């Protein structure tokens, strides 16, 4: 699936363009860690080498009201140049799991599991070793470019600092690199812009600067946490395009966190859907959009306005209800209170992430086969009158 240049407005990947890099998925032993091995047909397609693997990551926060179990067993792997999309409702633990990878969680957080960067467990490393990787091998782009840059230092200063945090070199040299990076992310007159302060940049330019900062040390993994949510629509597309270009330039993998299925459709090779701190479905992007095997995913698809797949109008069909409290999780499937397919077994036992009808497609649902039986899985989320 070649992503750059794809119009972001259309939520679904163009099937014709999509097949390039992603055929022949292979499955590893553990279903929860499925990844897609790919042929290196295109430079932008994912490579073979696994750069980041997260295994059974759990994060909880002790609070006054009890233990908040924000992440409850997340596993995934990303390869060189691969884009892994992580989607899920607000509060599903997307940011917390990626902050855990960055080692940026507050001290109060209790973290368990493994975070393997090229095979080394980051959680076993000393703070100093973690710091050496942070920003150098694993970089992060944040949601709000308006607040993510320090208002009192110039853009050049802040970019150079990213270099100087990992290498001692004359400032001039670091600034030169910063200038190159600004040029790379498409900021005109980069030399002049180095001396600007963040408030002299527009939102889109700041996010470009953030991207420049993230890639300045040639990282292997870039975690982009909702990089376009705070920007207006026209700028979003440009920023995503820049992100993909830059990724190819430095051969990095991207973990792209977003609410926006449209963004995922346009960019990601694979998608991980999170619900209540757990991955509930992992598959390659096309499968997620056309053959979801988890009702929650189907519900998300049903709430995309432009998705015209059941003949009904373009009415929003939000999933009713709210996500469960992460302090007192109910027994059984966390989605069961909101799930139209829920049965007794759903209220009793929480489904594990298991293989479905296609290699490399895993889902956590007792009744995934019911979704496989219908043409349009979003049908379960329609109101009566619509579903006729």
């Amino acid at each position, binding site marked *: 699936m070649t992503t750059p240049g794809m119009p972001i407005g259309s939520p679904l990947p163009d099937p014709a363009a999509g097949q390039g890099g992603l055929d022949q998925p292979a499955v590893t032993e553990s279903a929860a860690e499925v990844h897609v091995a790919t042929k290196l047909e295109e430079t932008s397609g994912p490579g073979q080498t696994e750069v980041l693997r997260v295994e059974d990551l759990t994060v909880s926060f002790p609070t006054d009201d009890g233990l908040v179990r924000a992440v409850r067993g997340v596993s995934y792997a990303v390869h060189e140049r691969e884009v892994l999309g992580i989607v899920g409702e607000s509060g599903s633990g997307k940011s917390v799991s990626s902050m855990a990878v960055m080692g940026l969680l507050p001290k109060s957080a209790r973290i368990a599991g493994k975070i393997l960067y090229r095979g080394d467990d980051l959680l076993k490393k000393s703070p100093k070793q973690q710091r050496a990787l942070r920003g150098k091998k694993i970089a992060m782009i944040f949601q709000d470019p308006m607040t993510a840059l320090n208002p009192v230092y110039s853009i050049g200063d802040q970019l150079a600092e990213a270099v100087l945090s990992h290498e001692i070199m004359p400032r001039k040299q670091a600034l030169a690199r910063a200038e190159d990076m600004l040029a790379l992310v498409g900021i005109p007159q980069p030399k002049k812009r180095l001396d600007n302060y963040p408030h002299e940049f527009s939102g889109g330019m700041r996010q470009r600067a953030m991207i420049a900062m993230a890639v300045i040390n040639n990282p292997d993994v870039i975690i982009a946490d909702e990089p376009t949510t705070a920007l207006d629509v026209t700028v979003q597309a440009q920023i995503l395009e820049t992100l993909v270009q830059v990724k190819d330039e430095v051969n990095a993998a991207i973990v792209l966190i977003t609410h926006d299925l449209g963004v995922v459709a346009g960019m990601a090779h694979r998608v991980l859907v999170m619900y209540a701190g757990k991955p509930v479905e992992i598959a390659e992007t096309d499968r997620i959009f056309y053959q979801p095997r988890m009702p929650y995913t189907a519900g998300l698809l049903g709430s995309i306005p432009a998705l015209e797949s059941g003949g*009904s109008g373009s*009415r929003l069909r939000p999933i009713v209800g709210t996500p469960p409290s992460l302090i007192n999780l109910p027994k059984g499937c966390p989605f069961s209170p909101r799930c139209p397919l829920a049965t007794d077994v759903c209220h009793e036992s929480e489904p594990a992430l298991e293989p479905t009808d296609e290699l490399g497609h895993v889902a956590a649902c007792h009744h995934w086969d019911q979704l496989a039986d219908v043409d349009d899985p979003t049908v379960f989320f329609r*109101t009566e009158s619509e579903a006729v």
Partner: protein
Amino acid sequence: MSDPTTPGPGPVPAAAAAADVQGMTVVARTQAQMVRRRFFRHRAAMGGLIALLLIVLLAFSSIGFANVPGWWDKDYWSIATVENGGRPTLSVIPTWLGGSGVHLGEHPFGQDNVGKDYFALTMRGVQQSITIAFIVGIVGTVIGTLVGATAGYFRGRVEAVLMRFTDVMITIPLLVVAAVLGRRYGDSGIVVLGLVIGLVTWTNLARLVRGEFLALREKEFVEAARAAGTSARRIIVKHMLPNIIGVIIVSATLAVAAAILLEAALSFLGFGVRDPDTSLGRLISLYQSAFSTRPWLFWFPGVFIIAIALSVNFIGDGLRDAFDPRQNRVRD
């Protein structure tokens, strides 16, 4: 088939507005509950509140006030013979611990050099100090809120005049202007003294309230109210002030704490409460040189000032945390 005109799951605008109004009041109530809960959980603030209430109770019930008699049989003006060097008779160590038992005795806090009962004197001091501090706090808060709200709401020339006036008043150091006023009004009784000092302690709050109002003014609900033709007074009182009540209450509390110390300082310098009346600051001032011979004359009023100021400061801190919990949390 679905009919886009029938009210489906999507709410119609009127219903939305109604739901919104309801939602807002619900939010407001839970907000107040949250504030209360956070305040009651704040241990230092609760300690402060209890201590303050106890001190007030003790001071006003012991020697009485106005024409209401108290349970303590001595007054703070009668001169008597000095017994046992005026030493305090208060004892808190029980006999079984080798002390002289728990009792108040004839003069629990001792006597001053002319034999006045020092407990009664101290209680009188507490009464006066607290009264002045509360008057100052209330007057300053009311004026500050009025000035700030008017300036922030009306903007334009009104704001310019009011804020320039505030700038002028802020230039005069509080202690200086309070001393000058105290020199003039110190012997007119504590109510007058409290009022005039209150007249000059509103400046910081005025700036604060104005800032908050400038921000609130742009909010939708204020614009909506204005568009609906609601009167300015009603918008200010009903819609805007409740939103910044936290700022005002916290500031008022801290103003009371500051006023306790200000009154003490003025009386100490001789520009506050005058003879024959007394206050805690005046007692310390009178007996500071007696420290090496009769230290209790110095300790008791001092301990009460500190206890009151500390209690009020803790209450203020608890209120601030309760209204703005964000201030005390950090991600890392």
